[in-house]
């Protein structure tokens, strides 16, 4: 770890103070994020409850037809579009574009208060596959925190954009991977997880002192304890994987960080049914494809649940959405797994229920709702797989978030219906970095048996999965969902249209084209008594790159190097 001087010329910070602009960010702390103020959006998931919900109701089902564009911001150099979740504190909107370009904007006007473009290791970035997008920032203690693809976590002064500290956390030159996910601020600690999954590393998650940038702890998601080491036969922990590339959340009552971890490598194993003793990585491969609870102060593992023991399908648990509910005297946590199964836990990850959002799913026959056991799992041998695997590698759900609306009691979540043909390739252990990916198969996207690819917005009970209504889309939407106190659900779709639905009935009330596909965040906030909806538009990336060859149509000409932040308000 190294710290960098504030005056380093590599950090290009444009600081411009506008006296007329709204108030600068006040101190954002744990209590404030926990409370999730009405006018703000203080952390990736809205508040630690992870509802992706705004109680604001100025824009509502009766007037949403009057919604129009208030202002637009173009971040530039949007290679692979925009995937960021904007944050707002005290009228200032913070967001990132590709290459971790970071902006602070006047939330009412879009006026640039400051911008910061970190100088990156371009040669390293050119070697990366899951790059150069960035999913957003964290706020806390008067600073804005952002990760970089070359393995750094940077703190910027929230008022000026000047670098407060710059800490190198992982050797990306060696490991190829870096940080694309947003950090999480909690109790004086910045938590950020590395990419992992397809690379030979141990998928670290870091806790960093918010004030100084000093690393406080590091948890290895691959064989991070003695117990876990025993679940990687034949020293297969060296092929690695794991990581935690999306931000999780924080339980302030127990000072626990909740985080989802990524898959082991290679993605597809040739073990056949004997995966405990045979194949590329014999055993359960802890703590990959798991949800874990870490002590925020020490990084010590407090509990875990491995959603997919020996994940052989790349349906990992890296989705960072942990919806914290109080129901019938129980404190519950709802977490979507990439497979399309939704897990319900108590606050120590003891399983309470499992339900599924997808129609087309055959990697297992089912997951036992009481024990979590994978029933009828398909463990492949090398060679062509006869029946297509469902869902497709892009998942039954996206890494982006759904929305829980406490007024309706419904969880609004997108499901994706697609499959893939698969030919499992037996490879030898990939333990040396720089080789890029470790997949273990050739494959191609395919429609579900007897049907077409599609996506759907479901309104469901988050605990039981009982469905109230569903809206279908010809191509799976990939972006996050927002619901509001105005009885609205917003879905930015892949074609580039933003839809607003009645939260109770699913009736479409409004739509508007943003001109390009969505695959990032959507939030609502208020400045000066006026409510805004902010959406990132801009397509491209591991899932969306499949859309042009698969669906043609508007995707053929849709740019994958462009993007905009589009902000709506009532006309």
């Amino acid at each position, binding site marked *: 770890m190294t710290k960098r001087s504030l005056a380093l010329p590599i950090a290009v910070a444009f600081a411009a103070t506008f006296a007329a602009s709204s108030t600068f960010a006040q101190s954002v702390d744990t209590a404030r994020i926990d409370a999730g103020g009405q006018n703000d959006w203080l952390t990736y998931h809205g508040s630690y409850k992870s509802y992706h919900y705004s109680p604001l109701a100025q824009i509502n089902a009766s007037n949403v037809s009057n919604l129009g564009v208030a202002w637009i911001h173009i971040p530039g150099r949007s290679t692979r579009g925009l995937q960021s979740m904007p944050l707002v504190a005290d009228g200032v909107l913070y967001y990132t574009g590709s290459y971790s370009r970071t902006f602070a904007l006047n939330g009412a006007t879009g006026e640039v208060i400051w911008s910061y473009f970190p100088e990156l290791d371009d040669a390293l970035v*050119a070697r990366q596959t899951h790059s150069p997008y960035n999913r957003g920032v964290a706020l806390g203690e008067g600073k804005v925190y952002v990760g970089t693809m070359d393995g750094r976590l940077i703190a910027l002064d929230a008022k000026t954009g000047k670098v407060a500290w710059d800490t190198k956390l992982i050797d990306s030159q060696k490991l190829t991977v870096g940080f694309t996910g947003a950090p999480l601020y909690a109790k004086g600690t910045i938590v950020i997880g590395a990419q992992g999954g397809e690379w030979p590393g141990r998928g670290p998650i870091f806790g960093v002192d918010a004030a100084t940038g000093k690393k406080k702890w590091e948890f290895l998601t691959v064989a991070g304890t003695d117990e876990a080491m025993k679940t990687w036969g034949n020293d297969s922990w060296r092929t690695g994987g794991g990581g935690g590339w999306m931000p999780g959340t924080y339980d302030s009552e127990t000072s626990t960080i909740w985080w989802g971890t990524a898959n082991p490598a290679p993605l597809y194993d040739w073990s056949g049914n004997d995966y405990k003793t045979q194949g590329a990585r014999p055993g359960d491969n802890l703590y990959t494809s798991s949800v874990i609870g870490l002590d925020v102060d020490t990084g010590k593992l407090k509990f875990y649940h491995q959603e997919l023991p020996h994940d052989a399908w790349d349906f990992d648990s890296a989705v960072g959405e942990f919806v914290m509910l109080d129901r019938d005297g129980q404190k519950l946590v709802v977490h979507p797994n990439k497979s399309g199964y939704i897990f319900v836990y108590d606050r120590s990850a003891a399983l309470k229920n499992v339900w599924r959002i997808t129609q087309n799913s055959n990697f297992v026959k089912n997951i036992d709702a009481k024990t979590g056991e994978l029933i009828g799992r398909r463990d492949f041998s090398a060679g062509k797989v006869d029946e297509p695997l469902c869902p497709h590698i892009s998942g039954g759900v996206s890494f982006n978030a759904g929305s829980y609306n406490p007024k309706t009691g419904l969880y609004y979540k997108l499901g994706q219906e697609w499959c893939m043909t698969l030919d499992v390739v*037996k490879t030898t252990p990939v333990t040396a970095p720089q080789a*890029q990916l470790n997949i273990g198969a050739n494959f191609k996207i395919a429609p579900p048996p007897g049907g077409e690819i599609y996506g759907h917005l479901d309104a469901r009970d988050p605990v039981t999965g009982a469905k109230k209504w569903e809206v279908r889309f010809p191509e799976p939407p990939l972006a996050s969902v927002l619901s509001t106190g105005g009885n609205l659900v917003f879905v930015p779709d892949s074609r580039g249209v933003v839809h607003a639905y009645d939260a109770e009935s699913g009736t479409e009330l409004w739509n508007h084209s943003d001109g390009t596909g969505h695959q990032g965040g959507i939030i609502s906030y208020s400045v000066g008594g006026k409510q805004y909806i902010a959406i990132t538009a801009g397509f491209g990336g*591991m899932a969306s790159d499949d859309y042009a060859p698969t669906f043609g149509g508007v995707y053929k000409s849709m740019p994958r190097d462009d993007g905009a932040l589009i902000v709506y308000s009532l006309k």
Partner: protein
Amino acid sequence: MKFELDATALLPAIVMAAALIWAAPAAAQSAATAPDYAPFDVEALFGSTCGWCHSDAGREAGKGPQLMDSPRTDDYLRNRIKMGKEGAMPAFGTAFSDAQIDDIIKYIRALKPHQG
């Protein structure tokens, strides 16, 4: 350098070739030090690295273009493999030696539809 296309005959060779490649980090990281005599199994490489974008081991378009029957010149392919394309394809110029990239091009040129 031996180059084979018969997948059914390749499994032992895949294991050996990949073992040699991946067991030699220096070879994987530096074109200058990559041993030009190392067997290099491109089919296994597609299964580990290239196949996510070049579907069916390069026979069909995916995120990346179909490579079978590519109209591009060898020089174009060589340059693209080495340099990559921003936002679309990683640069493999430091991962593979010139000889290994030549083998990748030979594999692409020899790609045929699956039998039967």
